[in-house]
Each structure stands twice: as C-alpha cells, then as structure tokens.
C-alpha cells in the first residue's frame, strides 16, 4: 500500500475556450480499495474531470496529484482495430502495456470470458454490437489488474448480465486494493457498485458520501403507488394518515373526470410517505372504507436517482441552495 492516495485533487478549475467553467473548484481524494462514483447530470463536468485525471487535460487552476501512472481507462468513445478479433485487440492492448507473456494472455482471455465475450473473441470487432464493444473495452481495462481505473459511463449499452459482470469486476479490483473512479449518471449503478459518491452539479461538488448516507440526508420520501380496478372517489385522508403527502398524490393515470386533488376519481395514485411503509396499513384501510377496489400496491424506496433529481432537477435556478441545505454540503 502506498502512503498517498492514488488521486488527490484540490480546487480543480477548467473551461473550454472562453466558455463558462466546466469545473469550478472540484476537490476530492480517491483512496485505495475504493470505488468512487462521480454522479451528475449531463454536462455537469464528469468527463472533463476524468480526462483531467487521465492526463489529457490540464487544470487551469487547482492541484491534481495522480500517483499511479497510466491508469486503465474506458472513455465515451470505444476505438478498436476493427479488422482484428476481440482477442487480438485484447492482446494488442496488453502488449502496448508491456504485458506479452503467456500468463498475461491468459489473464486477457479470462477477462473476455468474465465479460461474456469468450465465444465472440474470435470474431472481428467490426461484427460486434455496441454492447459487445462496451464489454470488450471494459475487459481490456480490467485485464492486467490495474491499480487505478477510470471509467466514463461504464454501463451505457450494457445488458443486465454485462452490468453484473461489471459489478463483479469492480468488486475484485476493490478487494485487491485497486482504486476506481467511475463517472456516471446511472444512479442505480452508483448505488450498487460505488462505496462513495461525489455529486457533481454544474462543475461543483455539491454532495459527497456513501449512497446510503446521501439518500438519508436528502430524506427523500417513500413512494407508495396504488392502482384500482376502476375509478374511485376518495375524500380527505383520515387522521392516521396525516404524515402522508396526499396528493402530492400526483395521479399517475387518467382522471375520470378531472377534479380537485381531494375529490379525484383516479384509477391510480402515488403518495409520498415520509414514514416509509408505516402508513401502508392505514392507507389500505382508508381505501377499503371508501369502497375502492385495489388491484396493486407498489412501494418504491428512495434512491440515489432521487438525490440526483433533487439536485439537478430542482436546479440552481429555483431551489439549488435549498437542495444543498437539505444535502448538508459543507462549505456550499
């Protein structure tokens, strides 16, 4: 284990030409055995930050220390030697990294297999689908046991099996002590695979922490979606449901006919509950008393996507500061 973290960034600032700052004072540390997710909406500066860490862009202000030279990277573009097979591409990348022994080739073949490309490895890459290209790029990056891995939107184009393979590979890197920086706007992936998340909004870090802690800090409500077999009339909720946000109850389906929120006759309703599923029994009892016939009830716990929506959706214009206050970002 080295003494200093693989990546230490402080006050990173960057603009393209005379444009507005893409990064405005970004700072963080990436530790060994850590999978750090950089989560943010499109244009929040994630890719620029990754390219800077890879050495392709220089910060215009701030300091950046990367202790591991030549990290393995997968960027948005997936360039390959199209005439060569997947296995030949893999061997080429390993050879360029100076790994030409038979053992290295076996590692490469193993990575191709891990990402479900064992059968396709003898086909030319020109015959690969987009998802297969993504898998090949990931397999190349993970081959050779990298100590530092930079991934830009790694789940784009991946099917569920590919996502599972990626999650397994990330776990292996982390277990081995490697560090991973993954820029993504796939909140599910970040929640599943990242030990820590950096929430980037308009070039600034607006929140940092484990996915669970961010969700808890945001205090996003549980969504309870109720569907009925037909239109029903509901009145005001009984006292036991005072904590229920009725309706914010935004009707997910058609109203019949349109009416005020507390007198609608919807076929489906969504409720925001700040007490989790505790209100579920009272909610069902309320509808039973109103003679409503429930066809299904779905409960959706808040996730990182809700945190992202809160920051990106509420946005700077209207309630950015409020969102930041909720998130409790130090120094914002």
């Amino acid at each position, binding site marked *: 284990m080295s003494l200093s973290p693989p990546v230490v960034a402080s006050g990173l600032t960057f603009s393209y030409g005379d444009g507005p700052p893409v990064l405005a004072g970004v700072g963080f540390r990436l530790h060994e055995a850590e999978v750090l997710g950089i989560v943010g909406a499109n244009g929040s500066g994630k890719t620029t930050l990754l390219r800077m860490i*890879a*050495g*392709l862009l220089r910060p215009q202000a701030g300091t950046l220390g990367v202790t591991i*030279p*030549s*990290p393995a*990277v997968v*960027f948005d*573009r*997936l*360039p*390959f*030697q199209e*005439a*060569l097979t997947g296995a*030949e591409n893999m061997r*080429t*990348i390993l*050879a*360029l*990294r*100076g790994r*030409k022994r038979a053992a290295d080739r076996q590692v490469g073949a193993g990575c191709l297999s891990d990402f479900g490309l064992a059968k396709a490895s003898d086909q*030319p890459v020109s015959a690969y689908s987009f998802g297969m290209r993504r898998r090949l790029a990931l397999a190349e990056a993970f081959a050779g046991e990298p100590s530092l891995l930079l991934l830009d939107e790694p789940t784009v184009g991946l099917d569920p099996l590919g996502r599972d393979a990626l999650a397994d590979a990330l776990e292996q890197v982390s277990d081995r002590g490697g560090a991973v920086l993954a820029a993504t706007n796939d909140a599910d992936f970040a929640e599943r695979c990242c030990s820590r998340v950096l929430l980037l909004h308009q070039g600034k870090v607006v929140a940092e922490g484990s996915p669970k802690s961010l969700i808890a800090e945001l205090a996003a409500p549980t969504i309870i979606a109720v569907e009925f077999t037909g239109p029903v009339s509901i009145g005001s909720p009984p006292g036991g449901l005072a904590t229920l946000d009725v309706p914010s109850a935004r009707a997910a389906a058609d109203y019949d006919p349109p009416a005020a929120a507390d007198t609608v006759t919807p076929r489906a309703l969504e409720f925001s509950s700040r007490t989790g599923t505790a209100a579920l029994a009272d909610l069902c009892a309320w509808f039973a008393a109103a003679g409503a016939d429930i066809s299904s009830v779905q409960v959706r716990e808040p996730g990182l996507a809700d945190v992202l929506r809160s920051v990106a959706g509420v946005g700077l214009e209207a309630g950015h500061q409020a969102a930041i206050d909720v998130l409790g970002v130090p120094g914002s």
Partner: protein
Amino acid sequence: MTGAVWRLQWAVALRRRRLLLWNLLVPALLLVPVALSGAAAVHKAVVFTLFFAFFGAYGSCIPLIRDGGSGWAEKVLLTGYGARPWLVERLLASAALDWAQLVPVTLVLVWLASGSPTDTAAILTAQAVALLFANLLGIAVAAVVKSLAEAALGCAIVCLVALHLAGVFRAPTVGTWAETASQLSPFRPLLEVWRSTLRDGITGLSVSWLPPLALAAALALFVLAAGVIGRRTAENRAV
C-alpha cells in the same frame, strides 16, 4: 520501443485484404499504362517518382488522422506506450508496408523497361529511401491538419513542393540553392535511378550519399519531435 505497434500495423494491413488488394492493383493500373505508353523516359520517371511519393505520404497521413479522430491514438497513448515509440514504429511499419506493396509493380515496370538486376536493386533501394521520406512528410501533415480533407490537401501540397525541390519537375539551375536542395532531397535518387533504368541518356548511376544522409537527419529530427507530434495527433478529435 517493444515492437508492439510495428506488429499491429502489419497484422492490420494483412487482415484488411480488400485494401491490400487495392494497394497492389491501383499502382499497377495507373503505372503500367504509363510504362507502355510512348511518353518520353524523363516523363515516365517523373510520373513514377511522383506516384511513389504520394503513395507514401497519403499512406501514413490518412490512417493517422483516422486513428486520431476515432480515439485509437489516444487509447494507445493512455496505455503508457509513449508518443515517440508509437510514432516511430508507425513510421517504419508504414514505410515498410508501402515498399512491400509496391515491389510487384516495380518489378513489372523494371521488366517493361528491360532493366537489369542492378537497376532493380537500385530502384528498390531508392524507393525505400523515398518512401521513408514520404511517410515522414505524411505524419508531419497529420500533426497539423484537422480533417481528412485538410490532410488530402496538405499531403498534395507538401509532396509537390518536396518533389519540386528535388528537381523532379524542372532541373535546378547549376550553382543555386535549388541545386543544393535537389542534391539533398531523398526523392532525388528515385528519380535518377528511374531515368537511368528508362535509358534517359544517363549512363551509370549518379546517386550520391547525400539524400540518405539528409533523410537520416530528417529522421533524427522526427524522433526528437515525435513526442509532441504524437500527442498533437492524438488530440486531433475532429474528422
């Protein structure tokens, strides 16, 4: 420098059989009719030299621009391979491939000119020198242009100027800087051996060691600048 890029260039060239076939056929389709024509020997020599120069320059420039635009160049550099070895190996492989692809048509042209084995050896040697220089020019163009269209234009201009300086189109005035430049040009030996082979009144070879020395100097400069050129090429994302 481990030879990984050299091997890659050869593997890709041999795998792309359609392109390989074109690279073998097109020179023959263009040059054999010229050889069979009643054109003056000096004009034939000019056409052959010009074609080989363009073949080399375009052959190194266009793929490099493509690799910059596709992100492959960036990918190679991000493996830590280094811009200098990448570009030097690429230059050598590209020139060697061009030479190998032009050997068949060269043999046909020499045979049509009733050339001797000595002529053949001289032409193939001069061709190697000229192709290496032309590939060097192509890579230099690739480092400064931003698109395939600019590359095509840039290669044409640079090659024509270099050929002009070599005295390919008009013999330079004796005792001027133009004569010195032509004596140094790596394109010059190719022109002269073709003229000799085509019996253009030249008796014996007048090829000097100066052009290869000039080429060696150009290569040394290239190796020094290859790091910058390589990074510049990899940054070229617009095609």
